[in-house]
């Protein structure tokens, strides 16, 4: 019963995305608003991408100069040796940065190597840059957010734990709010899906992943925040950890059910084996895409609706957009928690499958 997940909010979101993108395309046809619409579209796309500075906001001054508010972050490259420099050298992607005789340029939020101080990005027919890409381990805006969430979670839960010790096993302060959630993860997610016997081993991962996704999603909803979970690399990382834990905790039964399904005739066993094997990859892949797509979609719709305020530029349309943005903001708050919940439940479900003991066959 618990394994059934309501798809309604997701469907609604996808529906909204469809309308939003449809609307945007219509706007793009030679209307006087085109410039603004394109600008908004670009802004949205830029916002969804990672960046090398922590910019809070930016605007274009009257003389056409771009003003940025924020601070630069360290860029770490591996290009025949470690290169560390401040992202202020790129001047928000407008100039080429020179480090130890190498020249780098930012193109579509990625660092490419260029020939010289005036080196340009060479694009092929598919608009793909052909320049050499150094290995990039920069502390980008997303990495900064991850670090912030890391610190917040660490100190928050460490404090909660010490409060228990000091208070003789009773929660205090934040712990009173967090304890029901921790217990919810244990009693409603871990135990029903994994089972009384094995659940303890997975609690650390489930709790961490739940709170991490939730907090990161919530930060994504704040105006300063950058949504970490709309990066495929992040969701891929989370999904692959779930996959690895599932694979390494799989017992004899789990593998038997994949490679030699009991209770079906031999030809079926042979057909089922590759399907089941593929299934083990598809499950974490779906986890990855689900989280990524939901959060990205939410952001696109949210920003499109906010952008519509400027396109309408009249009080009825703009206030309608504002109202819609408000409603969607509330929905996004729900989605933030829901996605964390879904990711955790499905991870727990996969762990449960891996350690399940079939007694009657």
């Amino acid at each position: 019963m618990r394994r059934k997940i309501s798809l309604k909010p997701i469907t609604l979101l996808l529906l909204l995305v469809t309308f939003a993108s449809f609307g945007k395309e219509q706007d793009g046809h030679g209307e006087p608003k085109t410039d603004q619409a394109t600008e908004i579209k670009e802004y949205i796309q830029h916002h969804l991408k990672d960046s090398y500075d922590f910019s809070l906001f930016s605007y274009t001054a009257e003389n056409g100069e771009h003003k940025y508010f924020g601070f630069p972050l360290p860029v770490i490259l591996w290009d025949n040796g470690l290169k560390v420099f401040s992202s202020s050298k790129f001047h928000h992607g407008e100039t080429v940065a020179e480090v130890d005789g190498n020249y780098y340029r930012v193109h579509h939020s990625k660092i490419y190597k260029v020939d010289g101080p005036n080196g340009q990005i060479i694009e092929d027919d598919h608009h793909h840059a052909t320049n050499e890409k150094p290995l990039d381990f920069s502390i980008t805006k997303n990495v900064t957010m991850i670090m912030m969430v890391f610190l917040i979670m660490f100190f928050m839960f460490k404090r909660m734990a010490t409060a228990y010790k000091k208070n003789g096993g009773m929660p205090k302060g934040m712990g009173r709010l967090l304890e029901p959630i921790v217990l919810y993860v244990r009693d409603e997610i871990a135990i029903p899906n994994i089972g009384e016997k094995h659940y303890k081993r997975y609690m650390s991962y489930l709790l961490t992943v739940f709170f991490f996704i939730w907090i990161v999603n919530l930060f994504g909803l704040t105006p300063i925040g950058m949504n970490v979970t709309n990066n495929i690399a992040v969701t891929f990382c989370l999904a692959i950890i779930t996959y690895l834990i599932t694979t390494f905790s799989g017992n004899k039964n789990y593998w038997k059910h994949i490679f030699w399904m009991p209770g079906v005739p031999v030809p079926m066993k042979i057909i089922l084996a590759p399907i089941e094997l593929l299934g083990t990859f598809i499950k974490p892949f779906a986890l990855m895409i689900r989280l990524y797509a939901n959060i990205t979609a939410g952001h696109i719709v949210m920003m499109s609706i906010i952008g519509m305020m400027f396109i309408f530029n009249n009080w009825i349309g703009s206030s309608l957009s504002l109202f819609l943005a408000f409603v969607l903001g509330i929905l996004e708050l729900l989605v933030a928690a829901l996605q964390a919940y879904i990711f955790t439940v499905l991870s727990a479900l996969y762990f449960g499958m891996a350690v399940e003991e079939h007694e009657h066959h």
Partner: protein
Amino acid sequence: MEELLGGFSLGLFFWQAVLFIALILLLKKFAWKPILDSVNDREEGIKNALDAAEKAKLEMQNLQADNQKLLKEARAERETMLKEARDMKNKMIEDAKDEAKEAAGKLITQAQASIETEKKAAIADLKSQVANLSIEIAEKVVREELSNKDKQVKLVESMLGEATLN
């Protein structure tokens, strides 16, 4: 798909993996373990306390049942004791009555015997007195007789009037 692969950033993946795994391990050691242990301890404590209360309640019930039983026994004992006492009383009264009856019987027989003896003695005494009186009378009569005939008769009569038989 191309969009997805294009958006994939190795650096971000690297940092996310490092930071996230570090976070899991750190939180496991410093937060989740102590938190879950405390919660478990607390839950155990509550469960134990409830069990203890239940046990105490059961004991109390047992105790009450025992009390009831004791009370019942005591009441029964009192009943029997009272009954015995009553029986004893009755028996004692009965015995006393018998004894008294016996003693009274004895006394009566004794009294009857002594009355008989006294009677016999009295009759003997009377006999002897009558005899003496008769002799005295006879003597006086004889003496009077000898002097005056009337007087003699008178005398006998007065004598006889005086001599009231005891």
